């Protein structure tokens, strides 16, 4: 547990909501609008944290525990992610399984909170969420195992540390496949187009947003912060592979990492501006293909 790791964790907490601002500004640019300020998500969080709360009469302590457990689990997962060349707060052989399962815990808490309201809309969102994440999980783990095979190591620090320009020259095909799989998982797990559309206004078509319809005040702030951190976390995995800057100077490394994440957010904005979301029935095909890409990546890595 080093100071550098904790500093990076702090940077993640501070900068994660900025990703939403970048996405919104990119989409505004494509739509020819000015768009909301870059810092809009911070203003939202500050406003929500100052408010009281309204709870449904149906709900129990499970609903109140949902956002708390979910955010704690995402924070735990974030503590396992090595950022910008520095080791993570916790690192050990097989740590990426715990990372994936902590995201599972966060999801379980959110889904149960949604079901606790007894709302058909929230039940629908919960049902879709568990379906898509069940299909995304094999893709995530297989992609990480492919990288582990490249590193011949089992901890995320060594796995991501072993990715370099050299690896890209040797194993471009395998790394491309793995990156593509991780990018699909990143979009699906963060409820972005083409899996989910966070800006839709119809409850029937939502996935993530509909699950938190009844959350308000500080609870909603925790949910929003958790979502931002999850985007930082999964985006961080993609960026660590695509932008393997290891200069040795922590400022340059961290700068490259954050710049990579902001570029990724811009890319999400481009994707959302240029394509429509898939029909819900087609989403499983996308997620299964991501799993197949990851498995192929693992097979190609095995040849090396």
């Amino acid at each position, binding site marked *: 547990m080093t100071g550098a790791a904790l500093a990076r964790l702090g940077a993640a907490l501070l900068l994660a909501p900025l990703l939403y601002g970048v996405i919104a500004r990119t989409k505004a640019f494509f739509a020819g609008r000015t768009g909301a300020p870059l810092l809009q998500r911070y203003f939202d969080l500050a406003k929500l944290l100052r408010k009281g709360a309204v709870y*449904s009469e149906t709900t129990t*302590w499970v609903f109140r525990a949902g956002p708390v457990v979910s955010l704690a689990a995402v924070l735990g997962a974030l503590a396992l992610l090595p950022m910008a060349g520095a080791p993570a707060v916790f690192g050990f052989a097989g740590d990426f399984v715990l990372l994936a399962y902590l995201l599972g815990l966060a999801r379980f808490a959110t889904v149960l909170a949604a*079901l606790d*309201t*007894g709302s058909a809309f929230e039940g629908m969102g919960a049902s879709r969420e*568990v379906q898509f994440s069940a299909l995304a999980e*094999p893709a995530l783990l297989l992609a990480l195992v492919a990288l*582990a095979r490249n590193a011949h190591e089992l901890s995320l620090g060594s796995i991501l540390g072993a990715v370099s320009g050299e690896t890209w020259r040797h194993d471009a095909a395998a790394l491309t496949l793995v990156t593509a799989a991780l990018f699909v998982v990143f979009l699906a797990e963060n409820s972005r187009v083409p899996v989910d559309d966070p800006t839709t206004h119809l409850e029937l078509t939502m996935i993530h947003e509909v699950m938190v319809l009844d959350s308000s005040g500080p609870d909603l702030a925790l949910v929003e912060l958790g979502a931002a951190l999850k985007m930082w976390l999964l985006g961080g995995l993609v960026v660590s592979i695509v932008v393997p800057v290891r200069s040795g100077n922590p400022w340059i490394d961290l700068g490259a990492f954050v710049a990579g994440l902001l570029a990724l957010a811009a890319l999400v904005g481009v994707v959302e501006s240029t394509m429509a979301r898939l029909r819900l029935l087609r989403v499983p095909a996308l997620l299964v293909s991501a799993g197949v890409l990851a498995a192929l990546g693992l097979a190609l890595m*095995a040849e090396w």
Partner: protein
Amino acid sequence: MGLLLLGIACVAAGGIAALAASRSPARASRLAAAGVVTGAVLGLVAAGRVLLTARTEELVRAWDVPYGAIVLRLDPLAAIFLVPLFVLSALAAVYGTRYLADEAAHHSLGAHWFHLCTLLAAMAVVLLARNAVLFLVAWEVMSLAAYFLVTFSHEREEAREAGWTYLVATHLGTAFLLAMFVLLGRAAGSLDFDRMRQAGLAGSPLATAVFLLAVVGFGTKAGFFGLHVWLPEAHPAAPSHVSALMSGVMIKMGIFGLILVLSLLGPPRLWWGGALVGIGAASGVLGVLFALAQHDLKRLLAYHSVENIGIITLGLGLGVTGAAAGLPVVSFAGFAGALFHVLNHALFKGLLFLGAGAVAQATGSRNLDRQGGLLRRMPWTGGTFLVGAAAISGLPPLNGFVSEFLVYFGAFSAAVAPRGAVVVALVVIAALALIGGLAVACFAKAFGVVVLGEPRSTRARDAHEVGRAMRGPMALLALACVAVALAAPLALRLVAPAVAQVATALGVPAAEAPLVGATAAVTAVVWVFLAVIAGVALLALARRLLLRGRAVTRAGTWDCGYAAPTPRMQYTASSFAQPLVDLFSPLLRTERHETVPEGPFPAPGSFASHTADLAARAVYLPLFAGAAKALGSLRWLQHGRVQLYVLYIALTLLVLLVWKVAS
């Protein structure tokens, strides 16, 4: 050894005392529970001592039965299976005293307790027996006792059918075991397991035959997918504390038997590991898929037993692969994951079955779509069920995650090793990840529909919390799920001697070293668990401070402005699972029966769906129907005339005599 035998005797004595006290059901229950609890405490002390010291205790006596001998051995492998047996049996017995109290008017509780105690004692003897005759006798007593327990509510057709299915399945399985032991016995010249081990069968075709017979015979008991058809029938039909014991402990006897036979055969072939991994992946994925499609809470849990047996078998398959491929780290992690999961599954599945029994007793139904809103009415049952649901889904920070992590760890080690078994590792990882995601879906459904939301029936609305004797065991099991997770490195150290015993028997170089990496990883996992728990506490505190003094109001759930929402408009179990069920419809083939309201004056509509078992529908029903038809042509042999039956017997004897004299 003496202590353990005394414990088993206590359990048996409890059963006999209960039978003798049949006239007073309450006293019979108390006597049996007292016997089981005393026996369990003694047994746990004996098993714990063996696990701590890694020492083996033995008892050998002569026995008049041909080829039989009383060879009982308490080694670490037996001890690691005895621990869940005793823990769960004590808690289930206490739970049963209250659960059955209302049944006393219709059924003989004395007989029930006698069968229960017989089952427990027989399972303990199965784990200790090291002679094939003794093993098979105990195995058969165990199977028969379980039959009587399943048919407890024999006035219901469903229970009789389930008992019959179970009886046929278990005996078909035993037939394979009989053939297997005959093969082994002929090769070794003795039915003592030690002699079989010394026969040096490794690598011979006979070993392969024995392995296949063991997979089918023990797989029937364990519930490998395809051989599992009795499981989703018998578990729901039995009283809930019996379901807990059958699912938590009895099906593990199949796993124990398989490990035992593997260790008799010595160094395995590589493809055995692959075969076990394939069986495990199929059981795991199909088990959880069929669970998703169920509407009956206990049937759903029964399919999850198939799933968890799949996870255990994935671990065993990795262990065998590692042994055959010369990868000790893989082998040790695989076996450790499998054996640890045996313990963990007993804890959380026992808890879930006890919870399901409490729900069924409080609301009078096991149908998921007749429940809802139970957390307010039954806070203990609801809260402990949540712990069980999270644990079985493999979520941190609970025990299910730790054992699945060990299996993952083995698979990763196989994937990155220089001469690694990449394909096996890939199958294990993909299967475990898919199982994990689907299990979360299934238990979000089960817990969400049963315990959360608004009650969907009047019985659920009027439900009350169950009595203290039922709450206590559930609370203890939930506590154990948390405690085992937080003390995982310690628990792993207790599992280690059993792992070493199995690995050594399979020809893996004997050393404690291969588990060092896994232990270090598990220790780090526990630190993260603690960090997450601390995070939850801090965030909860922050939330409370933020809301202090602010307006916190209550209102209706957001319903898009609809004026008259009713609890019937909530998402149901079927609707929650529908996307996944549709996605896997080629495997599940759910039948739907629906009448859609039509026209200006619509008649009431209806919807029902039913998912029949794949193996039962595709294999067993046609098979048994065909067998019945083919054998029907022999019916003229059977006409009820006793004289002719005597003639058959005489003729048979004559033929045998001629054959004997001629040869």
